[in-house]
């Protein structure tokens, strides 16, 4: 597969959050605003890219029976690195993400990709797969973060990038719906996002079906007689 295809599948078709539906804990808990969500997404991406690469490198050295403990150790080491780096350089972010940074270690997506992909493929492809999954995760969690921040407080928090928050909806006329930054809002937003994802998938599928159908019809009408074309345009109307 082409490198772009390898990355692209993580974005929509095999999106880790919306389709595979794993790693929900971090997604829901760390998406109160854009900053937290981006931080979580980056930490997650670092760990999944690193673990995919390392596991792909050692895949021939590890006997089958002990592979799971080896994967866990590799992932736990990378998570510890991410945790301590965040504690040192972005202490505020580390405090607001709290226990969810060390908990990346039991994020099923990482283990899943290690088992299903990195243990069977070369380093370069595993790297791309990890990158695609990381980007897919980051995009969705950041989107949820933006939505919840906007609806809850009317702002997009950029404190992670060292910038001031952007106020989109001024609190003069938008008091903020607090429920969106609390627990129920997280479930609500992700529920609606998955429904939207279903809808888009359905629309794409029907569009594709219609296209192949009309292609077939064109092929059928092109060959026999002229009268067939009139019938097919009637059909379409």
């Amino acid at each position, binding site marked *: 597969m082409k490198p772009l295809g390898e990355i692209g599948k993580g974005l929509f078709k095999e999106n880790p959050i919306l389709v595979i539906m794993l790693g929900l804990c971090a997604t829901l808990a760390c998406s109160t605003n854009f900053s937290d969500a981006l931080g979580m997404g980056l930490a997650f991406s670092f760990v999944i890219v690193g673990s995919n690469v390392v596991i792909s490198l050692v895949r021939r050295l590890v006997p089958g029976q002990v592979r799971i403990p080896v994967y866990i150790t590799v992932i736990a080491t990378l998570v510890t690195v991410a945790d301590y780096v965040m504690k040192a350089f972005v202490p505020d972010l580390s405090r607001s993400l709290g*226990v969810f940074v060390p908990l990346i270690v039991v994020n099923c997506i990482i283990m899943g990709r290690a088992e299903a992909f990195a243990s069977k493929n070369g380093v370069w492809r595993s790297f791309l797969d990890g990158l695609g999954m990381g980007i897919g995760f980051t995009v969705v969690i950041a989107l949820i973060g933006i939505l919840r921040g906007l609806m809850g407080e009317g702002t997009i928090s950029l404190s992670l990038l060292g910038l001031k928050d952007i106020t989109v909806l001024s609190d003069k006329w938008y008091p903020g719906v607090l429920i969106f930054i609390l627990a129920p809002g997280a479930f609500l937003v992700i529920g*609606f996002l*998955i429904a939207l994802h279903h809808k888009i998938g359905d629309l794409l599928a029907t569009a594709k079906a219609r296209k192949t159908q009309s292609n077939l019809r064109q092929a059928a009408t092109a060959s026999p007689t002229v009268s067939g074309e009139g019938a097919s345009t009637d059909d379409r109307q």
Partner: protein
Amino acid sequence: MIANDMSFFLIFLSAMLVNNILLMRFLGLCPFFGISSSLKASVGMGFAVVFVMVLSTGVSWLVYQVLEFYHMEYLRTAVFILSIAAFVQLVEMFIRKVLPPLYLALGIYLPLITTNCAVLGAAFLANDYKLDFFRSEMYTLGVSVGFFLAIVLFAGIREVVDHAPISKSFKGQPIAFITASLMSLAFMGFKGLFGL
């Protein structure tokens, strides 16, 4: 916040209701959405989580004392997950040998919850609060009973929702999330209870 000067009863209630692990803290959501389409499986899962969580927090509390003694706290993440996984494996073998009926009831769920983030999360949280041994155990008991309560209630609601006429895009997971959102809203009513 949960601290060492709180009574056991308050710790229990706070962990079970006010800070419900599924609906307020978002831990262990994979089985919550994965298994809750059947009430029977949810009850089994709930019991298995109570069992494993209480035992594994005890183990991780002991392991942490060793780490602290050697000043190796930075190994916490790796050591906790490995010791919990190894311990659950041991328990599984033990009850298969000694208590076959219990194994039949919980067996298939035990390996599943080894990497359940609620189990590891409860151990991390009890560790972050710096609780003593018995308060850690009480805290985890509260957490796991809260898990049991939420997953069983949710499974009950889901069985009804499955038969409701809803639009196609919302069928399945999306409506489950929205149901969870409403349950979470209901559990928020416990906030402010006892001033916790």
